[in-house]
């Protein structure tokens, strides 16, 4: 059986860091998956693609924190913001999917399941308004630093 789900790179933080990057991402896969196991001071992290910090990102999300359920949206943002862990010792189980990331024709879209298991559970969709192939991803802590022991893993999925 051909291998269709492959690890591309993993970062495990040996010390706290403000951001993590995956660079020189091969275009040989169909889709990408990023698993975030981490904490941010406010339960949020942000993604930028290919170093772009222009106002080219939008997102829609639904969210529940145990007492209120809501849906929201932001557009013309400088990054794609999403939910990660926000409580000491309770890291996130957050999974980001980026589909058809290497084509040079369409804008790039994301699906994300974000979890702060002590604070909220959420689902996000995102858009990066750029047709360039994705070659790098940078994940930035929205408040403070990602703590020691955080892991970020990039997988590639091949359609055939």
């Amino acid at each position: 059986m051909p291998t269709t789900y492959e690890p591309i790179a993993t970062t495990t933080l040996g010390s706290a860091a403000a951001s993590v990057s995956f660079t020189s991402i091969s275009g040989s896969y169909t889709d990408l998956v990023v698993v975030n196991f981490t904490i941010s001071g406010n339960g949020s992290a942000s993604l930028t693609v290919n170093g772009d910090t222009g106002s080219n990102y939008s997102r829609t999300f639904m969210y529940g924190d145990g007492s209120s359920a809501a849906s929201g949206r932001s557009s013309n943002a400088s990054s794609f913001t999403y939910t990660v862990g926000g409580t000491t010792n309770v890291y996130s189980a957050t999974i980001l999917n980026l589909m058809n990331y290497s084509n040079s024709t369409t804008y790039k879209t994301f699906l994300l399941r974000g979890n702060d298991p002590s604070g909220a559970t959420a689902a996000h969709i995102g858009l990066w308004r750029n047709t360039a192939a994705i070659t790098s991803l940078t994940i930035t802590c929205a408040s403070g630093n990602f703590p020691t022991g955080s892991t970020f893993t990039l997988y590639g999925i091949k359609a055939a």
Partner: protein
Amino acid sequence: MATTYKAIATVTVGSGGVTSISFSNIPQTYTDLVILVSGRTDGSGNMCMQINGSTTSYSQIRLGGTGSSVYTNTSTGQSGASGNSFLAGISGASSNTANTFGNAQIYIPNYTGDRYKVGSSESNQENNATTAYMELFAGVWSNTSPVTSITLLTYDTGGKFVQYSTATLYGIKNT
């Protein structure tokens, strides 16, 4: 390159149903675990999860939709059929359209690590009726022990997963 997304074990429920579905002696050689469930119960369909047989230190947050409304709630431990656990999804309920099974995907990252163990799940309880359910969960077991066994339980006391329910445990390696 080695296969990184690998089936570890599958359970298919036989005639008469079962009160729980367990995966034990889970290999410690993967990075993350995924459980895919196609299930139906003889009760409400709510599905709980216990780790390593523990009956303490669970909590979860739920976000759900019915087709006409949304809801969210949280619990520090769910008193399911077999004691404290966390809700991990929904499967088909006895009141649902016949032969309709629910689906759940449960993702458990870093299950051998030294942090608290967390889970993310998406699930549905489809029904040929006005109301059906989809739910998202974030759960935590506030224990740093490696995950060596997982048990899926029905929420209802004495409840069972019915025949033809299936659950498969997958392991994912990051190298």
